[in-house]
């Protein structure tokens, strides 16, 4: 009996060590958590009062660690950016370590970043790991006079059985009457009409997103292609970014009068 107690306590000591792994899906998180909310505070603080916002948009970094590192390097080499938005698919298999590896690479960014939930991140227990490390799958933040609404649109991952996109959440965001913001940008992983989206509600999604105060444009990942499409012919352009393997990302500059973008190759 004494030996068993000793053995079990020995195992618990070993547990704290990363050498041993109980499962690639163990959900055992070491290191930083709640990254989005911490970084949102940094963004809101550093951008307060700003009328010109410049940010980078990257996405689909799954299983491209070397390329993600090169991208982080490229972003760090600039000093004109306020923050980075990651459009989701940090992982390929939803494995716990993949989230940690990506977090550790992205944490090397000198400016704050936020990450959205991608469809690959939902695999197995991935969403719970994502929520623990990064935060909830729907979130919003202010940067200067701009509001960014980041939405989970991976409806196929829930077999359409959950509120994805969550229109109650969108409605609450629409009712956000704070006077600090004048413009809105909506970011998502999978855009309307993609196989992940709940396309029965594409029109509704358009109807809702158009009503955001000073609606500028939408951002999406998932397609692994660079594109700029006016999906609904209503003047709201969807900017899709390529996967990181193609060594490209967007930089958007939103000024008082308008906005512009550039594609950076690294």
């Amino acid at each position, binding site marked *: 009996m004494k030996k068993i107690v000793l053995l079990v306590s020995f*195992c618990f000591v070993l547990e704290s060590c990363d050498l*041993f792994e109980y499962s690639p899906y163990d959900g055992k*998180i070491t290191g930083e958590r709640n990254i989005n909310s911490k970084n949102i505070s940094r963004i809101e603080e550093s951008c307060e009062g700003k009328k010109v916002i410049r940010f980078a948009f990257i996405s689909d970094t799954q299983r491209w*660690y070397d390329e993600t590192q090169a991208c982080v390097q490229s972003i760090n080499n600039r000093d004109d950016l306020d923050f980075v938005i990651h459009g989701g698919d940090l992982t390929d*298999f939803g494995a716990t370590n993949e989230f940690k590896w990506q977090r550790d690479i992205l944490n090397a960014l000198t400016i704050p970043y936020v990450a959205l939930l991608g469809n690959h991140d939902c695999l197995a227990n991935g969403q719970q790991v994502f929520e623990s490390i990064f935060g909830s799958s729907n979130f919003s933040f202010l940067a200067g006079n701009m509001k960014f609404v980041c939405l989970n649109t991976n409806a196929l991952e829930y077999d359409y059985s959950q509120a994805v996109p969550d229109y109650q959440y969108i409605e609450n965001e629409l009712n956000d009457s704070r006077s600090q913001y004048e413009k809105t940008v909506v970011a998502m992983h999978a855009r309307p009409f993609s*196989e992940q989206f709940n396309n029965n509600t594409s029109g509704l999604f358009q109807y809702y997103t158009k009503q955001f105060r000073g609606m500028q444009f939408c951002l999406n990942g998932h397609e692994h292609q660079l594109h700029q499409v006016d999906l609904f012919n209503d003047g709201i352009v969807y900017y899709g970014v390529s996967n990181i393997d193609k060594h490209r990302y967007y930089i958007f500059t939103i000024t008082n009068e308008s906005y512009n973008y550039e594609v950076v190759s690294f």
Partner: protein
Amino acid sequence: MRLLVFKLFYTGMAFIISTHAFGQDSISVNDSIERTKQYRSVWDSFIPKYVKLQYAGGMGFLAIGSGWDYGNKKQWESDFLIGWLPRYTGKQSQLVFTIKQNYIPWSLHINGKVILRPLHTGLYITSTMGRDYWIKEPDSYPDSYYGFSTRLRINAFIGQQLTFLFRQEKPLLAKSITCYYEISSNDLYIVSAVTNSYLQPQDYLKLSLGVKVQLL
């Protein structure tokens, strides 16, 4: 389905054994004893030869199981283990089932009591229970959307063993006890590591410890 396969297997085995045992048309007492012996010896080979307890290695926190050793020098071992994966971030703790094939080609007798097996290698497949883990992606996805299984992991390992023999004259429960370690990796980590210099051996190679108690 699983139960059906199990039943079919045993019905089939029983059929083979019975035709084998009853196939001869002699009715002498000796033959009857012989027949019983044969019948028992076939079933005897199904009795697991040892029990194993393994820590980590993607089989859960602790996995317990048993198996069979065979071959001229008992260089082959086949195990079945059940592991328990505690809840960390997920909704609940999980069970992990493992089938494992071991190859232990060399045995070095250090003295009358200790045997070193300098190479212990093989493959195992783990299966994580729970409805978030599928073998084949659900039909709701377009064809070959993800192209891998979240439930099944193929693992490869390499390790070493040290066996301590018990004195035969003492009526002990076991014949010997073996301690081993394994360094393993799984299919997901291997495909990640080959294309990324970012990943270091400590990221994709994991250590595991085990004990085998030889009963037969």
